[in-house]
Each structure stands twice: as structure tokens, then as C-alpha cells.
């Protein structure tokens, strides 16, 4: 069973979802929780069985799918993907457990379980096409969740979300096909296996074009400025569960893909584009933080804050050294936990008041002190306070990029200031001051269900902030091998210099020689 644990992880929720059609409406919630829990336990088992000392892929599975075109059902996890998978199962569990939605709950839970399949699939796939399949497929359940359970503009938001990301990923698909074609030219065989592609050294000008093609797909997903405008709509209209999953997991697909594809496949292009992308990342960080500050809707604040944080992740990724990339992978998890929690928290107040406008609130700290406390903890985590999960990631990202550029890091570091500004002012507007709005006077504090969702997140946010080692160590080992691979493959002297040389060598086929 351990040999096929990834397949099990991917398809168990889907299978359960199909069986779920049989379950009656009243029991659906319990069923959903049970399935998500089993899935979560399975993913924990994956972690338990994972050997952190091995930097390469583990639990590999391979099955020919379309061998004539080099497409295989190829799965595997390394330190980079392992924790995002666990995060996915964790958040599905949390999301279902803390669901307050009552409209057509059964459909929602089935959709969520399908979504879980696609999420785990994306992070476990090692074949570009299989990756692409799950990547695209994840749009569908999300489309439905936003479009069916969302706010008044839900249809606009969902279609925008879908088409925007769809467009980007189609360009990415062209890139993938190109990559496969290059591989075919170099070796005479079709292959979409990422691991096989890793062995290929492309001429720099090809790298640039391919990088750009992949970039569009990833950048829209992340979303990077100026492709980010679908996100506020999606978050603004999505139901709580949709926002939680979107922010916690789906956005990570983009940043994960940068680490999985762009960096090791195109080391020279990564170096070439490092500064332009860093500048985009800085724009994301500062500009969206400013936009977040101007928001009147608390959910939009969190939504824009996501973009801002994703900027830090991108910056860390393109630090192209172990510190930065490890940091960015860690920050993916951290941001998942924190933004997921923040969206859950926004959902809590939305359930009570059916509004998200900050002007409607004020003084909630005295009415709902426990809520205010947890919100405060998560806000501080979002701001990146040391000993919370976000700090580790942000610190490493900035630290890593500092090696590449002092000035840009200094500018990007403004993140910690502007982040504090919008978060604190939003918190102040919502929780501080006197209770002026009559409707807020008798609000109930958190209930059991909500605790169930939030407490684990608080624990994780602090636990991994204080003791990130169990997670950081496997990440570090895998990232080291990625960086080493990049260094070995890099051709231009600048790239060789920018990407640090670690020890150990991987086998590589230079494309020119294979011709």
C-alpha cells in the first residue's frame, strides 16, 4: 500500500465524493469530515514514512498512460511538495469541519472532495501533462464553489477566475509541448517526465522563451502583478470555504510550479529574469499592500494581503539560493495557514452579520474577545512577527534575496512596514473603539465548530514559528538538490555565479551534444 500511497491520496477523495452521492443530506457533513480526516491521516502517514534525509523523489509511482507521446502517470513527492500536500488535506479537513454553509451542503462537500483530489494531484504529479491535468481540473470545482455559493457578483467573479487562469495555463501548455519537443529532439524520445526534463540543458534563448510561456501560466495563478485582478473578485465573491482553499492551496500551485519547473528547467533564464521578476514582486508587495490599506471590506484586505505575501514568496524563489528558496517554500505553507485562517475568521463575522464592510464594525474586541484574540494572533502572524510561522518564511526569503541585491531587498523589506500598516489599521477598525453599531452589541463569540477550525491553525501557526525544523529540514534537503541541479546546468557565467555551488553532481545531457 505504501507503494501506491500517492495514488491513494489523490483518488481516495474523488472516490469518496462519488460514493457521497448516496449519502443522505443530513449525514453529508459527517461523511465529509470523515473522508477528509482519513485523507489527512493518510497524508500524515506519508510524512511519517517520508525519509527527510533523501533529497530526491520518494514514493514514486509510474504507469504508462500515453507512451506513444511520452506521457506517463508519474507521481512522487519530495520535501517541497510533501508539505503542500499535507497542507491541502489539512485545509480540506479544516474547511469541511468548519463549514457553516447550509445551502446544498451535499453538493458543496462533494465538490470540495473533488477539489482535494486535484490539489493533491497537482503537487504529487511529476509528469508535466499529469500536472497540467490536475492543474486545470482544479479550476472546475472552484468555479462551481464561487459561482454557486458566492455573493452577488459571483458569476462574473467565477468566470473571470476561470478564464483568466485558463488562458494563462494554455500558454503554459504550449510551453510544455515545446519542452517535450526539445526533449524529443535531444533524445529521440517523447517524454513529459519532469525528472527527465531536468537532465536537459537548453540553449539560453530557448530557455528565455519557454520561461516566458511557463511564467504566464504560473504568474496568473500566483497571481502576480499585473495579472492579479481576478483574485479580489474571486475572494470577494467566494464563500468562506472557497476563499480559504483558494488562498491556502490554489495560489500555491503557481509558486510551487516556479520551484518545480521554472527554476530547475531554465536556470539561465531564471537568472536572466531574476531582477525583472524581483521588481514585479516588489510591486506586488508594496503596491498591493497599499491597495489593501485602502479597502473598505475586510475580506478584500485579506485578499490583497495575499497578493502582497505572494510577492515575498516570489522574491524568495528567485533568490536562487537555498536560503531563499527554502524560505519561499516554507512561506507557501505559512501563508496557506495564515491566510486560510484569516479567511475563516472573516467568515465567522460574515456569518453573524452578513456584511464584510469594516465600517459596520468597531469595538468587536469587547463583544467577541476570543474571536478578537485569535484574529489578533493570526493578524500578527500575517504581519510576520517572529515565532509565528510567517516570520520564518519571510525572513528566509528576504535573507536569501539579499545575497542577490541589497537595494531590492531593502525595498522589498518595506513589506514588513506596509504589511503592518494595513493589517493593524484593519484590526483597529474592526475590533477597537467603542461598539457604536447596535447590531454588534449582542454578537456571539466563537462557537464550537469555529474553534474546531481555528484552534488547530493557531497551534500550527505558532508551533511551526517556534520549531520549524521538522518541516524546514526536508524542504532544505530537497531545495539543495534543486539548487545544485541549477548550478550544474547553468551555462552563462553570470548564472554560474549567481546560483551557489553545493556538493554532489547530477547526470545531465547537454542538448547540443545530443543533436
Amino acid at each position, binding site marked *: 500500500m505504501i507503494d501506491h500511497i500517492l495514488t491513494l491520496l489523490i483518488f481516495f477523495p474523488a472516490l469518496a465524493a462519488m460514493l457521497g452521492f448516496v449519502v443522505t443530506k443530513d449525514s453529508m457533513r459527517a461523511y465529509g469530515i470523515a473522508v477528509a480526516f482519513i485523507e489527512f491521516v493518510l497524508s500524515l502517514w506519508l510524512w511519517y514514512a517520508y525519509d527527510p534525509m533523501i533529497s530526491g523523489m520518494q514514493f514514486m509511482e509510474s504507469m504508462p498512460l500515453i507512451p506513444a507521446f511520452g506521457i506517463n502517470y508519474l507521481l512522487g513527492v519530495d520535501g517541497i511538495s510533501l508539505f503542500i500536500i499535507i497542507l491541502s488535506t489539512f485545509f480540506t479537513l479544516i474547511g469541511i469541519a468548519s463549514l457553516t454553509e447550509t445551502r446544498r451542503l451535499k453538493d458543496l462537500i462533494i465538490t470540495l472532495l473533488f477539489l482535494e483530489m486535484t490539489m493533491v494531484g497537482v503537487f504529487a504529479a511529476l509528469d508535466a501533462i499529469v500536472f497540467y491535468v490536475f492543474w486545470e481540473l482544479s479550476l472546475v470545482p472552484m468555479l462551481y464553489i464561487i459561482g454557486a455559493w458566492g455573493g452577488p457578483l459571483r458569476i462574473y467573479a467565477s468566470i473571470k477566475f476561470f478564464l483568466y487562469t485558463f488562458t494563462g495555463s494554455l500558454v503554459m501548455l504550449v510551453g510544455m509541448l515545446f519542452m517535450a519537443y526539445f526533449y524529443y529532439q535531444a533524445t529521440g524520445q517523447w517524454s513529459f517526465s519532469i525528472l527527465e526534463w531536468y537532465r536537459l540543458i537548453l540553449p539560453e534563448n530557448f530557455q528565455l522563451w519557454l520561461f516566458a510561456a511557463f511564467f504566464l501560466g504560473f504568474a496568473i495563478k500566483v497571481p502576480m502583478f499585473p495579472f492579479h485582478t481576478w483574485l479580489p473578485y474571486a475572494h470577494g465573491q467566494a464563500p468562506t470555504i472557497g476563499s480559504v482553499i483558494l488562498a491556502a492551496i490554489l495560489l500555491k500551485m503557481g509558486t510551487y510550479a516556479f520551484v518545480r519547473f521554472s527554476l530547475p528547467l531554465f536556470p539561465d533564464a531564471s537568472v536572466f529574469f531574476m531582477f525583472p521578476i524581483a521588481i514585479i514582486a516588489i510591486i506586488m508587495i508594496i503596491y498591493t499592500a497599499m491597495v489593501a490599506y485602502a479597502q473598505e471590506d475586510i475580506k478584500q484586505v485579506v485578499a490583497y494581503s495575499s497578493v502582497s505575501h505572494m510577492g515575498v514568496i516570489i522574491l524568495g524563489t528567485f533568490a536562487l539560493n537555498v536560503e531563499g528558496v527554502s524560505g519561499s517554500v516554507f512561506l507557501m505553507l505559512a501563508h496557506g495557514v495564515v491566510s486560510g485562517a484569516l479567511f475563516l475568521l472573516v467568515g465567522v463575522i460574515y456569518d453573524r452579520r452578513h456584511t464584510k464592510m469594516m465600517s459596520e464594525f468597531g469595538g468587536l474586541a469587547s463583544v467577541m474577545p476570543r474571536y478578537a484574540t485569535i484574529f489578533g494572533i493570526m493578524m500578527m502572524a500575517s504581519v510576520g512577527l517572529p515565532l509565528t510561522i510567517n516570520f520564518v518564511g519571510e525572513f528566509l526569503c*528576504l535573507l536569501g534575496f539579499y545575497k542577490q541585491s541589497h537595494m531590492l531587498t531593502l525595498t522589498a*523589506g518595506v513589506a514588513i512596514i506596509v504589511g503592518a500598516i494595513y493589517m493593524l489599521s484593519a484590526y483597529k477598525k474592526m475590533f*477597537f473603539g467603542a461598539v457604536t453599531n447596535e447590531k454588534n452589541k449582542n454578537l456571539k463569540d466563537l462557537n464550537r465548530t469555529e474553534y474546531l477550525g481555528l484552534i488547530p491553525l493557531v497551534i500550527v501557526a505558532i508551533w511551526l514559528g517556534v520549531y520549524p525544523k521538522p518541516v524546514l529540514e526536508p524542504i532544505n534537503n530537497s531545495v539543495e538538490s534543486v539548487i545544485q541541479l541549477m548550478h550544474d546546468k547553468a551555462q552563462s557565467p553570470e548564472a554560474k555565479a549567481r546560483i551557489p555551488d553545493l556538493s554532489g553532481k547530477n547526470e545531465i545531457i547537454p542538448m547540443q551534444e545530443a543533436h
Partner: protein
Amino acid sequence: MELYLYIALFAPLVGSLYASLFGGSPKSQHVGIVASGLLFTSFVSSALLLSYVMGGHTVHVELMTWMETGDLYIPFGFVVDQVSVVMMMVVTIVSTVVHIYSIGYMDHDKGFNRFFSWLSAFVFSMMVLVMSDNFAGLFIGWEGVGLCSWGLIGFWYQKESATWAANEAFIMNRIADLGMLIGIFLIYWNTGSLQYDVVFSEIGNLPLVVTTWIGIFLFIGAMGKSAQFPLHTWLADAMEGPTPVSALIHAATMVTAGVYLVVRANPIYDLIPNVGIFIASLGAFVALFAASMALVNRDMKRIIAYSTLSQLGYMFVAAGLGAYWVALFHLMAHAFFKALLFLGAGNVMHAMHDELDPFKMGGLRKVMKGTFIMMTLASVALAGIYPFAGFFSKDLILEVGFVEHHYVIYTVLLLTAGLTAFYSFRLVALIFHGEERYKLFGIHPHEAYKFMLVAMSPLLLLAIIAGSFKMTYYQLVTSLLPDTQYHVHGEMTYWIMTIGTQLFVIAAIVFAYKKYSNWNSVPDGSSKLENSFGYKLLSNQYYIPKFYEEVFSKPYLELSRIAWKQFDLKIVDATVDSIANAIYKTGENTRDIQNGNLSTMLRWMVIGLVVLVSLALAFTVGYNAVGA
């Protein structure tokens, strides 16, 4: 000894967690008692460690790994050496006193338990800050105290001004923290480590320019925490918090973290004396600058806060000039008498129902004898009258300035000393002497609880006698810090200087007493003095907060709005939508091609054919032309 270290470190955390367990429930006396008890435990452990360290040992432990990736290795490591143990003593003494005091002070507050939770958490963060053996750990404490400061300034969160001040403090500190963070990055990428011992042994090998930048960035961090100009405005506003908080955080401990950082990083600053001069100059400037604002202020706590700011300036002068042990000594002495002063002010506030304007008080010495004595003595100490603590530490700084031939700095500091004496006793005189103006407002003042006064007494004692520890202290810390001696050449000069300073200060005190001890009215802003330019300038803090408001806060908000409404929605998003709309509109506009009329359809086919044929012919003609 490791056990004591952990007890000293974690006892406050336990207290905080214990208090937070009851955070939501109404006041429980035991929370205060337990928290104070744990703080006392921490103090005892610190004291034991002190005696151990005085024996010439240090304790260095590594609790566990924090971050490890690539070449980066950051443990939770703690060190108790001669410097940190001094800080630990200061922190634990003052915080124990403040904790006990707070049991009385927060007696009637709904957030009693929450208060203790925050307060103990602060002490824990402060302990992490001073005990950490690396820069990252220092940064944890650094941000931790910032967080607790935020929570405590905004403790009365119903008050708009309090929450505003809390956010201001946090954000301003964050600005400085960015500098610190950059300093840490520089250190890491140049020395490969963040451990003090590694860094300090490597630092000499770095190019001077790098060291200079490291020094500058670290100092930017220190400027924020220690509220040095231009990041000083938050400190006065932070007085919105409960007074024990002001005593502990914004007088005795947190604000001195910047000084501690410079002292701790002395091997770095030793290499870059130019930066040191800058630090000293800035310190001197702030000393005078803050003192001047204190002169006319009508808010008791703000006056003390400015005085704190001014004294921090003194410390930076010492630190900047390389007299690290002097800076640390003043830090210690200042912590005692300033905390005492604040706690006294707290008593007054309680008595006056949170009235802060000293002009509305007067004659309180009759009802609040204990507080009167304590505040007077604390002010004496602050003014630096022999043999109180302030004399030993502050005069030393003056001497340092003199000996190092920085006469401008010396003069400024001397002048400031006079001003300090003046405003301190202006305050004392207005509060405790003169007519009982509070009667106009129908207030019936009363003395604080006895145990609060008892709790304050250790501070009083220390404010009086701390100077006598000078030699012991000196021997202790100079085993770690550079052993710099400051002896004014010629005994005569020394005596003239010392006595001259004393006389100058006493004169200022007398002048203040003369002017204010018989005050009998509440100024209403109509007097000539109050309308003079200088007065207005000072009472508006040189218009700096207003300047910040107009130049940074408002434009930032405005810019943010523009970024959102004009740029994000109207340009970025509209571009995306317009592409989609353009495609859709094209469809709308061209769908009439399909008008359902068979004739049109046939014509389209014929047109298509004709176009194809003409293209074929055109191509042929062109092909033949090229071919021929």
C-alpha cells in the same frame, strides 16, 4: 546554572500563559499574584545568576534549533554574561515591582487578567532580547516587546487615541526593524553566522565599508526602539497606555533595548568610530530636543516620557563615544528612578481620576505624602544630585563627553541637565505644592494602596543607592565591555566641573520651585507666554507629529486610495476586462454578417472565391516577376 537561566527566562512566560487562561474572565486577584510571584522567581534566579557571573563565569546554553537551512543556522541560544545579567537584573527588578504595583493600579479594571498576560509576555520577550546569544534571537525579543508594547499601549482599546498610539508605535518600530533586519542580513552574508561570538570574531576581517553599513543599519533598529529622532513621536503618544506600562516598557526596559543593542554590538561599533560620533551627536541632540519639549508640556506623563527620551539621548552619547559601560550604567540607574517616577505619576493619576494636567493639581503633598516623597526623590535622582543614582551615571556621561574632547556635546548635555532639573521640579512643584487647584474640578484625591507604595520602595532604594554599586558594576562589566576610563585631567578641573554642574542643576531646581510652587490658576491658553512662538513650537512638539501626519500618513492613505480606485480598478482590471469586452463586442458587431439571408450567404461564398482567385493571380504575377 542552566536551570536558573531557564527559570529566569520562562517564569514570565508561564505567568503570561497562566494569566491568558483567565483572559476572558473577570478580574481574578490570583492572576496578579501568580504573575508577580513568577516574576519574583525570575528575579531571584537572575540574582543567583548574577552572583555566579560575578564569580567570573558565564552561562551559555542552546535550547534547540530554530531555523536551519542552507548555511544558515539559528538556534535558540541564550547567554548569561556580564552584560546580559545586568540587563536581566534591571528587567526583573523593575518588572517585579511593576507587577506588584499593578495589582493595585489595575484593581478596578475589567481587563485585569489580560493586563497581566500582556505584561508578563512583555517581560518574557525582554528577557529573550537580552539573553539571546545571536542577532536573530535578539530580533525575536525585539519584535516581541514591540508586540507587547502594542497590546499594552492599546490596552484600553475603546479609546481611539490609545489604539492609534499603539498602531503608531508598532509601525514606527517596524520601520526601524527593517533597518535592523537589513543589518542582520548584512551580518549573515558577510560572516556566515548570526551568533554573537562568531560575528564579533569575524567582524574585524570585513571591509570597513561593510562594517559601517552594518553599524548604521543596526543603529536604525536601535533608533526605533529607543525612539531617537526622527522616530521619536511614538514614545510620547505611547503614554496612552496604563501607567505601569509606561514605567516598565516606556521608561525602564524596552526603550533602552536600542542602547543595549549598541552596547552588545560594541565590537562592531568600536571599528567604526565615525558612526559612533554620529550616534553620540544624535543622542546629544535628542537629549536637548526632548528636554525642550518637556519644558512647556501640560501632560504629566508626557513630560516624564520626554525626560526618558532625553535620558536615552545621554545613553547614546555614552555608547556612541565608546563608553559602553557608562551607557549601560546610566541605563540601569535611569531604569530605577524613571520607573519610580512613573509609578508615582500613576498614583497621582489614580488620585486625580486620570487627570494628567499638572496645572489642575497642586498641593497634593498633603494627601499623598508617600508618593510625594518618592517622586521628589526620583526627580532628585533624575536631576543628578549627589549622592543619588543619577549623579553617578549622568555626570559620568558629561565627563566622557569632556574627556573625549567633544565639547559641543558636553555643553549640550550640560544645558540639558539644567533643563532636566527644571522640568522635573516644575512637575513636582505643580503637582504637590501650591494651591489645591483640583478642588475646582470636584476631585477628591486619595493616596494609593499601601502595598503599592511598599512595592515601589525597592526602586526608591535603588534610585538612592545605585550609584554606590558603581565600582562593583564596573569591575563586572568591563570584563566583557571595553575597559575605558574617563578621568578629567587635573583634579581641579574635575572638581570645578562636578560642583559647577551640581550648582547649575540646583539653580534650575530652585528656579522651577520659585516659579511654580505657588501656582494658583489653571492656564487657559491666553497668556502672553503661551501665545509666543517658542512656546507654541515646543508645545506642539516642533510640529513634527503634524508634519508626519501631513507628509506621510495622509498622502499614504490618499495614494493607497488612488492605487486602488484609479489604478487597480480603472487601469489594471479595466484593461483585462476591456480585452474580454473587445472580443465580445467584436462578436456583437460582426454577427450581422450572418443575417440569415441566402443571397448574402451566397455572396459571401462568391466573394471568398473571388478573393482567393485574385490572391492566386496576384501571387502568380508576383512569383513570375521575381522568377523573371
